[in-house]
């Protein structure tokens, strides 16, 4: 683990521990003063962290292909605009059921997945729209799936939580918390068995770490030396329950130590840090056939799903994270490194908006699946 990463882990700890404010009424004044001080410290810390991030990000940017950097930013912006559109059309009743948005977490999918080869495999949880698009499924097919239309990537049979593409080696969004950790382990098992050279990227949230399947999978992956990278997207909330109310330990990356597995803590607001950590893990998987656990600390701006008003946290808490927004940070760094200009940003923005509008048009126009689809695909 690099020095910068250790620093991040420490400072993130301070930020998170500071937000715990349950006290008796007679301690109210003292509590307010303490909290005010803590808030100030947090703001200063966040600012310092932002500066540190930017400096390290610029270093990493200098080592990376410019065309790729542009594409990374584009995918992040597209992911953001796409999910905002989902929220909009969901409220209009165009999308039914559950709809879990990725806003705020874009740096993770883009940072990790754009370090892969196209033949590598990816599997994730139900928060899967952006991963699906980064892996190559068109925004049209993802949005049409959300609309429950035949033009969707699984013909309207899966919806928000179940995007799949055999062609693009995207093994799905999965709805049982943690279930995909075991399936991803099996995909890596097959890659090793067939000597295909493929690496498997397996995403899950921090709440999934409390499931037995996480531990069963990590044990087997290290025991059998499987080429898999477990990416824990720690957005601090399992639905409405914060990590500190659900997990006896703070440090998820270190859980891999129990299985003697390589692990790293990564700042999930920094797309280049995610990319660099993913590249190290991918190399380990591809060349040594060894697994890695990455804990990528992030924050989701929206509720758990569209039906979650998010009463368990304050607007201030969300605003604080938005100050360290992964897209703003990346743009600042790209500009400082003289890779992209405001003009480029405008072009990227326009392209993303246009792509999303095209997806909306496609989803609107695509027909609902015919009833003859009801009983197909049950058995081969």
């Amino acid at each position, binding site marked *: 683990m690099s020095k910068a990463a250790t620093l991040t882990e420490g400072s993130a700890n301070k930020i998170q521990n500071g937000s715990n404010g349950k006290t008796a009424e007679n301690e109210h004044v003292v509590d307010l003063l303490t909290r005010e001080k803590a808030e100030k410290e947090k703001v200063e810390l966040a600012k310092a962290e932002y500066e540190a991030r930017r400096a390290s990000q610029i270093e990493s940017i200098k080592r990376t292909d410019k065309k790729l950097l542009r594409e990374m930013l584009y995918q992040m912006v597209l992911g953001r605009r796409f999910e905002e559109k989902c929220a909009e059309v969901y409220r209009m009743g165009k999308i039914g059921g559950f709809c879990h948005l990725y806003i705020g977490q874009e740096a993770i999918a883009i940072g990790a997945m754009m370090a892969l080869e196209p033949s590598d495999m990816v599997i994730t949880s139900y928060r899967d729209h952006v991963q699906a698009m980064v892996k190559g499924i068109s925004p049209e097919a993802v949005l049409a799936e959300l609309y429950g239309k035949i033009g969707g990537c699984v*013909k309207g049979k899966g919806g928000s939580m179940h995007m799949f593409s055999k062609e693009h080696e995207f093994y799905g969004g999965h709805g*049982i918390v943690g279930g995909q950790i075991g399936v991803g382990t099996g995909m890596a098992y097959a890659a090793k068995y067939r000597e295909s050279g493929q690496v498997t990227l397996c995403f899950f949230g921090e709440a999934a770490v409390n499931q037995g399947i996480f531990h069963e999978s990590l*044990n087997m992956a290290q025991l059998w030396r499987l080429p898999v990278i477990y990416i824990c997207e720690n957005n601090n909330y399992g639905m409405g329950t914060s990590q500190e109310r659900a997990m006896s330990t703070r440090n998820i990356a270190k859980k891999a130590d129990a299985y003697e597995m390589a692990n790293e803590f990564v700042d999930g607001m920094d797309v280049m840090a995610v990319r660099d950590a993913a590249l190290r893990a991918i190399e380990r998987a591809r060349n040594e056939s060894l697994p890695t656990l990455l804990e990528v600390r992030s924050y989701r701006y929206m509720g758990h799903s569209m039906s979650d008003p998010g009463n368990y946290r304050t607007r201030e808490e969300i605003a604080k994270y938005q100050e360290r927004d992964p897209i703003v940070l990346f743009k600042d760094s790209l500009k400082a490194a003289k890779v992209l200009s405001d003009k480029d940003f405008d072009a990227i923005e326009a392209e993303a908006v246009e792509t999303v509008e095209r997806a909306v048009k496609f989803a609107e126009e695509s027909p609902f699946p015919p009833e003859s689809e009801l009983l197909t695909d049950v058995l081969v």
Partner: protein
Amino acid sequence: MALLTIRDALNEALREELKRDENVFIMGEEVAEYDGAYKVTRGLWKEFGGKRVVDTPITELGFAAVGVGAAMAGLRPVVEFMTWNFSILASDQIINHAAKMLYMSGGQFPVPIVFRGPNGSAFQVSSQHSHALEAMYSNFPGLKVVMPSTAADAKGLLKSAIRDNNPVIFMEQERMYGMKGEVPEEEDFTIPLGVADVKREGTDCTIVARSMTVPLALQAAEKIKEEFDVSCEVVDPRTIKPLDIDTIVGSVKKTNRLVIAEESHSFASVGAEIAYQVMDTVFDHLDAPVKRISTVEAPMPYAKNLEAAALPSVEKIVEAVKEVCYL
């Protein structure tokens, strides 16, 4: 024809499929170096090595999941549960993942996997090792459920199950592993899934039995023939899902009477489904209400006499036949 135990017939099926397709591999607890808890995989690890026959930790949910992922990514795993009772730990992967993957991926990801092992009671192994679980797994679209009762069926059906592109629940019976039967020696002998077999022809009463209750039903039929000169037809569906209801209905149309003998508990059982389907299609052909013999509605007791009382028996089947034949 070769005279084989069910255990050895299963072993032959596994050996032949391992040889035929290099994407087939076996995984489970004690399947490799220990030669299998019930010796179904005997000799396979020595012959095919640790890549093809894999010992797992005791981690049912985990290795079931590895099987599902490996099947999605192009392999054909045969996953052994030491008993189906332990599959309950893995049921999330079997039900929520294997069974639903093809549908929720819009047909893109078939899961060609076989989950196999002994189902139901053994010899005084008590409550947590004696459950017959076919009704539960039959309730999930996307799964096939197979239950052989003879050595030939065991071999032919297991080979077909391994070649099938769907997840297959393959349920054996520990009490039956040592039972011998004739197995065709022809090259690549298989039996298609979804086809019932008439184990004994008769004219007066149909007994539908599966797995452990097939030999019981055959003995009961013999006894009834001797004592009452009543001729029973014993139909073994062999595959519970998809169910060959046509063969069962055809038999009922001939005999006009139906007894169902099953090892599982009665409530919401496979027998209940068969009774419904028969009533739905040939109600007017029935000369008596359908009668069902199942395990009593209690967890399996340990004591020998209580265990025997809980399970279906030749006597219970005889009584049921007498009842529907008004004897």
